[in-house]
C-alpha cells in the first residue's frame, strides 16, 4: 500500500494534518490503534490559557509572540505564531464545512465553566458553550438554573455551584438547581442511574423526547433565562436539537463538560473524521503500527499488527501517536521510550523526577512535558542525532510543553499537525 502521506495516530493532531494533506490533493491514510484523547477533552480548543506563573492569559497571540522568543523548544515556537493562528482558522473552516459552529472571542480567550464550577480560559468553543448571546447573558448577570437528571451519577450540580459562587464573576448571580426525570423509554430494562453521558446524548438525539424534556426544563428552570446542563445534549443531531430545545423553552441552554466520555469532544472527533473521509482520505481504525524500516536515513515503510508483513509505504510519515495515555510514549520502571522507532526522547531521570509531590500540583507534572525530541521542522532525531527528514512528529507526542498547566493541549495538536502538513505538501508538491 502506497500513499503520499501516512499518518500514525488519528487524534486531534493526526486528523488535522490528514485533512490538510488530503485537502491539498495528497493521497493520505491515517492508521489509528484506538480512539483518541478527543473522546475525553472538553471539546473546547485551548490555545494558551495560563502563563508560567499560571496567571490567566487573555490575549493568547500577543502572549505567544513574547513567549515563543523565550522558549525556542516549545512546539508553538517551532510552528511560529502566524502558523498557529492560520492553523486555528483553518480548523474553524474545516469544522464549518461539517456544519459545526465554532466560536471565538476575537483574538481573545473566553472562559468556559467546568464540571467543578471553575472557569477555564480557552480559544474556541462550540456554540452551546460560547457565543455572543451567552456572553451577553453572563454580562447581564442573568439568572442561571443548573439542571440535571435525577440520579445521574456523572454530574453533581451542588459541587459546581458552590465553586461558581466563590468566583467574583458570579458573586451576584442567582443560581438555582432543578431535577429532570428521564423520559419514559418504554424499556424497563434500562437503569437510568447508570447512564453515561453517551446514553443521555442518545435520548436527546431522538426527536420524540424533546417536547417532554423541554416542558421539564421550563418547569424546573422557572424564571432563569439561562439553563446549564452537563454536556449531553445530543451527539448526532446535537445542533438541530439544541436549537429546538432553546426554541421550545425560550432559554439559553449551556453545556458543561462532565465525566468521560465527553460528548463535546466526540462531536469534534466525528466532524473531523467525516471531513477526512469526504475528502477521500483513508482511515484504518483499530490497527497498530509496530515498526518500520529505514533506507538512506529516511523511513521507507511501516508495518502493522493486522497487515503482518505487508509494507505501508509513503513519501512522508507523520507520528501523531499522543503521549503515554495513547501509547505514543511508553515507560517502565527504568525509563521512557518511543515504542515504534525508538526515537530520541526528552525526559528526566531518575523516575522520582517524573512527577510532582502533589497530584493537583500547580506546577503540573514533568512527565507531561516529555516527548520525542525534534528540530524546528518537527523531524525527530535518529540514534546518531540526525534528523529523519520524512518523519514529522506532532501533537501530544512532542516535548517541552505542558498541555494542562499551560492550557494548550488542543492548540498544540492543531498547530503542529498543520505545520507538519504544510511542509509535507511543499515537499510532495
Amino acid at each position: 500500500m502506497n500513499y503520499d502521506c501516512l499518518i500514525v495516530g488519528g487524534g486531534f493532531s493526526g486528523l488535522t494534518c490528514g485533512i490538510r494533506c488530503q485537502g491539498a490533493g495528497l493521497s493520505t491514510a491515517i492508521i489509528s490503534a484506538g480512539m483518541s484523547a478527543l473522546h475525553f477533552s472538553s471539546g473546547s480548543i485551548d490555545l494558551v490559557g495560563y502563563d508560567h506563573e499560571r496567571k490567566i492569559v487573555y490575549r493568547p497571540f500577543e502572549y505567544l509572540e513574547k513567549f515563543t522568543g523565550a522558549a525556542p523548544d516549545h512546539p508553538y515556537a517551532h510552528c511560529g505564531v502566524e502558523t498557529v493562528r492560520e492553523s486555528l482558522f483553518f480548523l474553524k473552516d474545516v469544522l464549518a464545512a461539517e456544519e459545526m459552529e465554532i466560536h471565538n472571542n476575537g483574538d481573545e480567550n473566553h472562559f468556559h465553566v467546568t464540571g467543578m464550577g471553575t472557569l477555564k480560559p480557552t480559544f474556541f468553543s462550540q456554540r452551546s458553550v460560547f457565543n455572543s448571546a451567552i456572553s451577553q447573558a453572563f454580562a447581564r448577570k442573568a439568572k442561571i438554573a443548573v439542571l440535571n437528571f435525577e440520579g445521574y451519577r456523572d454530574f453533581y450540580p451542588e459541587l459546581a455551584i458552590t465553586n461558581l459562587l466563590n468566583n467574583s464573576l458570579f458573586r451576584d448571580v442567582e443560581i438555582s438547581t432543578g431535577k429532570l426525570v428521564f423520559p419514559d423509554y418504554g424499556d424497563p430494562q434500562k437503569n437510568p442511574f447508570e447512564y453515561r453521558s453517551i446514553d443521555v446524548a442518545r435520548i436527546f438525539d431522538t426527536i420524540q423526547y424533546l417536547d417532554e424534556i423541554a416542558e421539564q426544563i421550563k418547569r424546573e428552570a422557572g424564571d432563569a433565562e439561562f439553563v446549564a446542563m452537563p454536556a449531553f445534549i445530543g451527539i448526532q443531531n446535537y445542533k438541530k436539537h439544541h436549537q429546538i430545545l432553546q426554541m421550545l423553552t425560550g432559554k439559553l441552554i449551556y453545556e458543561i463538560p462532565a465525566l468521560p466520555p465527553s460528548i463535546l469532544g466526540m462531536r469534534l472527533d466525528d466532524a473531523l473524521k467525516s471531513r477526512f473521509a469526504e475528502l477521500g482520505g483513508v482511515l484504518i481504525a483499530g490497527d497498530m503500527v509496530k515498526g518500520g524500516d529505514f533506507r538512506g536515513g529516511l523511513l521507507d515503510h511501516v508495518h502493522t499488527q493486522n497487515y503482518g508483513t505487508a509494507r505501508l509505504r509513503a513519501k512522508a510519515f507523520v507520528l501523531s501517536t499522543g503521549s503515554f495515555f495513547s501509547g505514543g510514549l511508553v515507560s517502565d520502571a527504568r525509563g521512557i521510550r518511543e515504542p515504534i522507532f525508538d526515537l530520541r526522547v526528552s525526559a528526566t531521570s531518575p523516575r522520582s523526577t517524573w512527577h510532582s509531590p502533589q497530584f493537583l500540583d500547580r506546577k503540573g507534572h514533568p512527565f507531561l512535558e516529555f516527548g520525542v525530541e525534534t528540530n524546528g521542522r518537527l523531524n525527530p532525531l535518529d540514534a546518531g542525532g540526525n534528523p529523519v527528514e520524512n518523519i514529522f512528529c506532532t501533537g501530544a507526542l512532542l516535548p517541552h510543553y505542558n498541555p494542562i498547566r499551560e492550557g494548550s493541549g488542543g492548540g498544540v495538536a492543531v498547530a503542529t499537525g498543520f505545520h507538519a502538513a504544510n511542509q509535507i505538501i511543499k515537499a510532495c508538491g
Partner: protein
Amino acid sequence: MKRIETDVIIIGGGATGCGTLRDLALRGIKAVLIEKNDIASGTTGRNHGLLHSGARYAVNDLESAMECIAENRILKKIARHCIEDTGGLFVTLPEDDPGYHQKLVEHCRYARIDCEEISIGKALRIEPNLNPAALSALRVPDGTIDPFRLVSSNVLDAQERGARIFTHTFVTAVIQEGSRVTGVRCHDTGTREDFEVYGQVVINASGVWGQRICALAGVELKMFPSKGAMVIIDYRINNVVVNRCRVPSDGDIIVPGDTVSLIGTTSKKIDYSQIEELSIDDSEIEVLLADGEKLIPNISRTRVLRAYSGVRPLIAVSGDVDGREISRGIVLIDHAARDGVEGFITIAGGKLMTYRLMAQMTTDLACKKLDSSRKCSTHREPLPGSELKSMPGKHIKFFSGIPQSVVGSTLYRHGERVRQILSLSKRNYALICECEMVCEGEVEYAIRHLNVKDLVDLRRRTRIGMGPCQGELCSYRAAGLFARLNVATSAESNGMLVDFLEERWKGMKPILWGDGLREAEFTHWIYQGLFGLGDVNLPGEEESL
C-alpha cells in the same frame, strides 16, 4: 467544654483498640473509643493482611507461632467475611537453603500447625503461576485477612451494643488526678471542638504512637519503629498465600488480598520522629518486585497499582535493634504495677491476627480493675456479617436482577449484612466504583452506618478507589454523593475530593510507570485539565467572559 462519662476509654482505633471495644461491649461494659484519624488508618490498615498459620514464626519464635495457629482457627469461625481460607504454600527456590524446608516441617509439627509436604506438580496445580523451578513445597493453613472489614465489623457490633466511637478525634492530653488516670482530653478535627471523656480505665491501644500517649501520662515506654513496604499488583495473581521457604527476609510473601495481590515486605529501622511521614525508596520497590518475580514470574508483566508502608510497633522490652529478630510478642502493661500509675493500661505489639487475643487480655485486665467478672466471648460470638456461612448462590438468587458481580462483591465485603445493603431498586445498585463494584446502596450504607466521615474513610469500608483506576471516575461520583445525601456540604465534598486524590497519589507516586502512569495522566487530565480542581480556591477573575 463538653464532658462524657464512661467506664473505659480506649485510645486508638486499630484492630487492637476496636477489638477491645467489642470485647468490652460484649461484656456489657460501657466504653468510648477515640481515634485520631479513621479506624484502621494506622498500622492496621498498612500491613500485609496475612492470616498467619504460624509457620512463618515456627522456627524462630515458637510462642508467636502457637498464638497464631490458635487465633487462626478462631478467626476462621468468627470472622468469616473478613478472612479467606486460601491456604498457603512455602516453596524453596533453587537459591534457597534446602535444609530450611525440613526444619520448618519439624517445628510446625511441634507447634501443631498442619504442614503437608506436597509435590511441585501439586503445588503448580494449586498455584499455576508459581515458579516451576521451585524445588520443594509445603502446604500450611495460611489465609488472608481484610483489616478494614475486620475492624469495621468489630466497631459495628460494639456500637450496636452501646459502645461509642469518635473518629477524626485526637487525644491531646491524659487527665490525671494524683497518680490516677481519670480521663482524656480530645480534639475533634472536623468540628474543631475540644471535649473530655472520663472513665475508670484508660487503655492505650495506639500502636506505634503508644510511646507518645505514655508520655502524655508521664510514663516512659520506648518503641523502635521498623518500617515495612509492600506493593500491590493489579489483580489476584495468586490464589493461595505464597511464602518463600527460608529464614524470614525481604520480599518473601505474596498474599492474595481480595481482588489484588500484595508483595511484601521490607524491614527498615526508622527514627521515631519519622513515623508520620513514611516514604518509600525506589530500592525497596525494586527488591520487592525482583523477589516477587522469583516466586511468581508473571509479576514482571503485571501492572503495579500502589506501594505503601507500615510501621511495626516494636517495644523495647529487650535491648534489641533489628526489627525482625525480636519477637513480635504481645506486650500488655499494667502501668499501676510498672510505673505506679493507676487506671492506665498499654497494649501493643502482637499482630493484626492476634488482635482478638490482645483484646481479650486487655479486657480481662480492665475487668479486674473494674471488679467485673464477666467472661470473654469473642472467640465464640461471630462478627456481624459472619453469622452464617455465606452461600453466594443463595444471595445471587435473592437479588436476581442485580449483576452477580455486584451481589458477590458486596457479599464478600459485608457478609450477611448484604441484605441490609442491596435492594432491587435500580438506584440502589447503580455502580459508583466500577473497578470494585461498589454501588450507590453500599456507599449510602457505609456513610450512614459505618462511621464514614470522608472519602478516604469510605474507601476503607468499601474498596472505592482501590482498583486499577485508583479513583479516576468514582472519586468524583462518591464526593457528589456525600453532597447529594446531605451528609456534607458541597464545599466539604470538594475538599474531600481533593484530599482523596492526594491520598491516592501518595501510593501511586513510587510506582509511577507503565499503565499506572497512563492512568495517572488520564486522571490528571480529568481532574485538573477538565475540572480545574486545583484551581477551586482561586480568587475570581476580574475580566468578563
